[in-house]
């Protein structure tokens, strides 16, 4: 479990993380979501003690990461893909990390196999593609068999096979009861990978919610109905306690009634329908709605979503 309490980080005048409090629970994949520059990476770096907060505290299993006797056992992190020396082989990179904790070399081979890097283990990591570098970073994060796994943009640079591999891996790790925190600026990625979402913008927490609840909360189901007899239909729907908003002549937006019940009602009363379209808010819309105000680099948004 990761507990973040009133965490704040400043770079000069700029506030990167602003009084952030939240809890990341075990047994599920938690998505850390926000536009570029929202403070996701900075928060992750503070969790594993690479950055020092201006105020506040982040703990893993009740203690700051740096206070644990065997930190790699508590948490493994992938913060940037290329966190290795180009001249060292994948095996020696992982071995050096393992040796700090007295972890046996057999475990190095285990994580190399898990990451699909066995065949290139003796090759120098400088020649790795971005996808292989990412896999090496994930292998490094798992070396201590940690209870908490923190991955910053883990699907970056992975090919489609790799993306499916990481999704499966994350779900397996969560199912084993571990705490899994992954960041992304891609809502679509989170929709298929995460169970729970922490959404931040400008360093502040905007939402702490299960993925399903987010859809329900923002995506109030509504139905668009086009009919030449819209006025009559509207009256009938109002009698049945639905909310009806006229959009334009002959077009209604209906809440509180399903497309099926509206269709049946129209058939029963002999009304003509030209169009009957259920509107489901996508996660993308939900996310946009939440972050719109908080987007720091407005011009970046189109490209990153």
């Amino acid at each position, binding site marked *: 479990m990761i507990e973040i309490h009133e965490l704040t980080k400043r770079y000069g005048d700029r506030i990167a993380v602003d009084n952030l409090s939240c809890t990341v629970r075990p047994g599920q994949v938690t998505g850390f979501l926000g536009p570029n520059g929202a403070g996701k990476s900075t928060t992750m*770096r503070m969790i*594993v*003690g*690479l*950055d*020092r907060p201006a105020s506040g505290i982040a703990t893993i299993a009740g203690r700051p*990461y*740096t206070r*644990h*006797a*065997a*930190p*790699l*056992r508590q*948490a*493994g*992190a992938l*913060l*940037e893909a*290329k*966190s*290795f*020396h*180009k*001249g*060292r*082989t994948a095996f*020696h*990179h992982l*071995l*050096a*990390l*393992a*040796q*700090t*904790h*007295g*972890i046996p070399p057999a475990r190095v081979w285990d994580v190399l196999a898990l990451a699909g890097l066995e065949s290139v283990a003796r090759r120098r990591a400088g020649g790795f593609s971005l996808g292989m570098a990412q896999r090496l970073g994930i292998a*490094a994060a798992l070396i*201590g068999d940690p209870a908490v796994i923190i991955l910053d943009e883990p699907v970056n640079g992975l090919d489609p096979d790799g993306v499916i591999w990481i999704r499966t891996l994350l779900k397996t790790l969560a199912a084993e009861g571990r705490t899994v925190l992954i960041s992304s600026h891609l809502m679509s990625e989170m929709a298929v990978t995460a169970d729970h979402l922490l959404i931040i913008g400008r360093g502040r927490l905007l939402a702490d919610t299960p993925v399903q609840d987010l859809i329900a909360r923002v995506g109030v189901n509504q139905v668009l109905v086009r009919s030449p007899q819209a006025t009559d239909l509207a009256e009938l729907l109002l009698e049945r306690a639905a909310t009806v908003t006229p959009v334009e002549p002959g077009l209604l937006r209906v809440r509180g009634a399903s497309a099926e019940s509206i269709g049946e009602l129209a058939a029963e009363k002999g009304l003509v329908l030209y169009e009957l379209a259920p509107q489901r808010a996508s996660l993308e819309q939900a996310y946009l709605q939440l972050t719109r105000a908080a987007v720091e680099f407005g011009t970046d948004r189109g490209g990153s979503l």
Partner: protein
Amino acid sequence: MTGVTFGRVARSEWTKLRSLRSTWIILGCTAILTVAFSAAFGHGYGGQIRSGEVTPSLDKAIDVTFIGLDLSALIIGVFGILQMTGEHGSGLIRASLTAVARRWPLLLAKALVLAVVTAAVLGPTCLAAFGVCQAMIGDPGAGLGDPGALRAVAGATGYAVAMALFGLGLGAALRHTAVAITVFVAGLLILPAMLGPALPAELEHRVLPYVPIAAAQAVYAQVPDGSGPFSLLSPWSGLFVLLGWVIAVLAVGIVVLTRRDA
């Protein structure tokens, strides 16, 4: 039982050091260059003796061996710098500091491994350089049993180890390879040469013997008066001054490493 201990971090640092090809290239080149230069200086000095230009002196024969040692020290210093800046430059530092979250053991373990490896390579190298140099001088050459000879070999090795650690500390304090090398070369080799003319004479005599390179020279040189404008410290004082410098720079490195965001 797993947990981070200093011994484990040192073992990890040994793995890091030995698994880079560049480690063995740099150390190999340093060894070859050191012995080659000593051979050349020995040959030159032997020639001067044979032609009657100089009168043979055992002290001088020993000193001749290590005339070129500053070059070896420079390479070894850069080697030390790279141990730390290589981690910052590649991003490995993030992985290293999540493993060794308390940070200071990382630098001390690096220092230990670096000192042992440098001593293990430069010790035999300096011994070989001495042997080859004296052989080139010929009959008037010194033997290891001659007074001061062992001190010269051990002192030269110590100088190399000190420069490696000095570089490591600078690397930790400055983080960038180019910046650290610039400061190393300027501070260690160039500034002391400029201090002479810049300082008033009596201050010059008091300050210059304490700069790292002069302190190091005091440890391995036989003729303390030298030809320079100032007198060297005694070998033991030189050793302590050199040690002081190394500890000071490593301390700054530890402070920077533990205080700053990685």
